[in-house]
Structure formats: C-alpha cells, structure tokens
C-alpha cells in the first residue's frame, strides 16, 4: 500500500479534484477508483458523491462507507452508473462514459514516470494492466506515444465478464492509442492462482485484476519482450475472493475452549 488509499487511482484523484472548481463532485466508479476519490475529497473539502454498481465487493463497500462521502448504489454493471451519476447535482468528473479526464491524468502522472524510467533504446515496451475502462492502460500508453516510444498495450478482462464490449481497440467509447492493442481474457481461478503464487513466492499481495495482468505479463515476458505489468491496487482488500476461490479453510469451535489444545489450520488454496 504505497499510495494513501492503496491504488494507482490515488495518483489522479487528488489532482483531478483539486482542478475542479465545483465543490460538489460526482464520480461513477467501483472499487479502488472510488476509494481513491473518497480519500482525496476530505482534505480538499469537496462534497463527493460516489455512484457504485451494487456488485462492488463487500469489503470495498465497507471501506467506502467509512469515508465522509455519499454512496449511491446502482443495480447492475458499472456501465449503469453513468446515467444515475448524470442526474446528481455537482460536476461529474469521472464515469465509465467519461474517462477522458482520468486518462489524461494517468498520462501525465504514472505514464510520464514510466517513460522516464525506461531506456530510450527504440525497443518496444509492452504495457499490461487490467483493462477496466481503459483510462489507466491507455492513459499510460498515451505518454509513451507522446514521447515517441514504441508501445503495445495488453488489457486483461475477466472471462466471467465477457459482455464487456471490446472491439477494435475500443472499450466503452475510449480508443487505444495507435499501435497494436490486445485484450486477453483471464479466468477467475487462473487469476486467483497467480494471486496466491505472488503472495507465497514473492510476498506481494495483489488484487484479482492485477493478478490477472501479472499472469499475462509473465507469458508476454517469456517471449522476450520488455513488459511492464501495472499492479493497480493492494491485495488486502480482496479477502472475499479467498473465501470464494481458496476453498474452505475457516475454522470453528475453539472459541472459548481450552488453549492447551490448539487446533492448527494450514493455509492452502
């Protein structure tokens, strides 16, 4: 958790809110982007309304509820949040149908930082990240394009959410910068396997989306490419996925019983 709310979206939430003249701000987002804006709004004295899809993970809703923001839950997928957010008083800063500001902010922050770090040797860089609305992946790629660096983007999506419309490098109305763009589907159990592997072998705990991207990045790197896998957020806010995919390792019955007879529970996926 190297950023205040624990995700890449911390990089853009503060600057975007600070640049907004309106004191009332609305965003339509889920998970980590929502949490980043909620955290940034308080010191800037912005009255923030966050419109989230009700499929948001319960741990994300719990954390979001602790910030001094108004949370509106909308049934269905993320796409549905835009229409509701448009009707709420205040400036609609970011939504799935309004990714431009976020994209530009990622380009000037994370994108510029990565361009700075990578040698200008004419070699192609492959960027891998969860696709989401494209704002992060394409925003970072924009910075590479602007600097005249060859770049390719690979976005990962959950196979389980195959209805996400990705055609010809266009996702939710946002186009990838020129250069080849691919979208790779990752199954949830595969992403989970990589989450566990990264935790146990590297001591790095990442979320499901970032785990999916890391899995794809590894495949890309095995072909000799220079790959940057963007870990979008900290993995400590995804424990419900462990319950879902990690099998039952819950343990009951020792509550209040004799501590001389400890029961051991072995972690294991």
């Amino acid at each position, binding site marked *: *958790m*190297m*950023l*205040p*709310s*624990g995700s890449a979206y911390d990089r853009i939430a503060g600057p975007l809110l600070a640049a907004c003249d309106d004191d009332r701000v609305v965003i339509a987002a889920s998970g980590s982007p929502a949490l980043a804006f*909620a*955290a*940034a*709004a*308080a*010191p800037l004295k912005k009255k923030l309304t966050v419109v989230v899809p009700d499929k948001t993970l*319960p*741990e994300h809703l*719990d*954390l979001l509820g*602790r*910030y*001094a923001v108004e949370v509106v839950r909308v049934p269905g997928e993320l796409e549905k949040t835009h229409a509701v957010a448009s009707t709420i008083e205040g400036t609609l800063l970011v939504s799935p149908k309004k990714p431009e500001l976020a994209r530009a902010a990622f380009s000037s922050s994370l994108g510029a930082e990565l361009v700075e770090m990578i040698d200008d040797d004419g070699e192609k860089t492959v960027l891998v990240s969860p696709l989401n609305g494209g704002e992060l992946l394409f925003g970072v790629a924009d910075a590479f394009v602007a600097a005249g660096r060859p770049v390719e983007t690979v976005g990962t999506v959950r196979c389980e959410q195959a209805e996400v419309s990705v055609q010809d490098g266009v996702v939710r109305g946002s186009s990838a910068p020129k250069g080849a763009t691919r979208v790779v589907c990752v199954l949830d159990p595969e992403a989970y396997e990589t*989450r*566990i592997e990264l*935790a*146990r*072998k*590297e*001591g*790095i*705990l990442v979320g499901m989306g970032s785990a999916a991207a890391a899995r794809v990045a590894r495949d890309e790197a095995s072909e000799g490419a220079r790959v940057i896998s963007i870990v979008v957020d*900290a*993995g*400590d*806010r995804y*424990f*419900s996925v*462990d*319950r879902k995919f*990690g099998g039952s*390792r*819950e*343990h009951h019955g*020792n*509550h*209040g*019983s*004799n*501590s001389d007879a*400890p*029961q*051991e*529970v*072995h*972690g*294991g996926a």
Partner: protein
Amino acid sequence: MARLRSVEPEGAEVWAKLEFLNPGGSVKDRPALNLIQAAEKSGELRPGMSIIDSTSGNTGVALALYGAARGYEVTLVMPENVSSARKSMLSTFGAKIIYSDPMDGSDGAIELVRKIVEEQPGRYFYTNQYNNEANWRAHHDGTAEEIIEALGDRITHFVAGIGTSGTVMGTGRRLRAFRDDIEVIGVEPDDEFHGLEGLKYIETSIRPGIYDRSVLTRTFFCPTDAGWDSAEALVRDEGLLVGHSAGAVVHAAKTIAEEALAAGKKPVVVAVLPDHASRYVEVRES
C-alpha cells in the same frame, strides 16, 4: 510524512508518519524484516526452520510477507477472535495459524508460543519481538533517521503507541541522541480493558523486555473513546482511513501540542500512525 492541519491548534505543527505506506501495510514491516535479517546473520534462523511469533495482527502480516519472500515457513499464534479478513490474508501468504484462547488476549498467545517452541527445540525460530533488540533497532536506524531527515532540528515532540514498545524505544533513543530536549511520549490505553488494538496497558501486561521507561519523557494514557473518535475525525477531515491505535496517537499528539502551546512553546509534533483501517475490514459471513 503528512501534515495534519485539521488537528493542529493554531501555532503548532502536527506531522503524521504514515506507516501504512510500507509494503505490508503497517509499521511492523520494519521490525519484521530486521528480526529475520538479524537472525539470519546470527545463525539463529536457518533454511528449513519455521518462523514463529505471537501476534494479533500486523506483525503476523509482515512476518508472513517477508517469510514468504525469503522462503521460510511462518507459524503465527493469535487469539481466535482475530477477524476472518486477517486470517484470510495470512493464509494467502501461506502462513500456518495456531489459535489461542480469545479470553486470554495477546498475553495468552505469548504463553502458548513459548510452550510450542519449548516442545520442539530447533524446529522454530521465535522472533520474540517483545524481547528482541532487533525490533527497536529497526526504528533506531530507520524510522528515526527518516524523521530527522524530514524535519531536522525543528522537531520538539515525538509520539508513538506502545505495543511491543519497539517504535517508541528505537525512535525515541535515536531522537534524544540527536537532540536531548526532544520529548518522547509513549501512548497506552487508559485501562487494561480497552479497544485500541495494537496498544498495551503495560502495568498489567507481560512487560516487553525491550521496554525501558527511562527512554520516555512521558506516558500518555488514552481512553478508547477518544482514540476511536480521533480515527473518525481523521477520515472525515484528512481522508486518512487509519486504525484505532493511530487515532489514539493523533489524539495524544493533539493534546500534547495544545499543552505545549499553553506553556508558551511552539511545538512541532511527530506522530506515528501504525496502520490503515483496511486491516480491520470485517464482512459478515453469509
């Protein structure tokens, strides 16, 4: 470090050292890594051994993380009423968990670890964070240096919670060596029955071996309610979603700043915020 303008009385500065920014999400990354490295160096920890400690949380996460990264099995003993989120995170890192009786609190877990280690000599490396000087040394060489680098001569007060006491012992020693008029304040709960996770009421607890009262210029006893209210104010006013012990430390820092102002001083207070509230997320099992 971040300046906490919302808690500053006029004329004072209150700075927060945001320890949730460590890779493992808490201040415990520092001692955990140093405990492991020091034991590797001394030969107490060898490949194939299991790292064991009693921990109600953050040290467990940090040991699980660095143990995994360095290829050791990690065994953690904790009261059974630890949140399922915490258990889940520790299992994700592959740590083995042994439960102690929740009615006996963290001291019950300490006693159980000692028993397990005695029963199987050579099997475990007991990090023994309450008595291992590598704990406070991590803060002496790390936390304190970073604070000095950031604020230098301006710092007047240092405030940190007492759990193992490693943070306040290590940082306090180094700061007082840097300038002997810096006040070092340790924060404890105001009663042994409290709700400030991570903090210890020293008088009635197993006393940490590394705790040395003479390093402190003062102990601040924080009521649970004041700590919880302070944590709520921090998220409302600063967007900092921190744990209750961080709330208690900030409450202490604010009170101490007010008192110093009243005494005609211009305080520059540094407070250590140990962790983030995402550590304490609990979702009802369906």
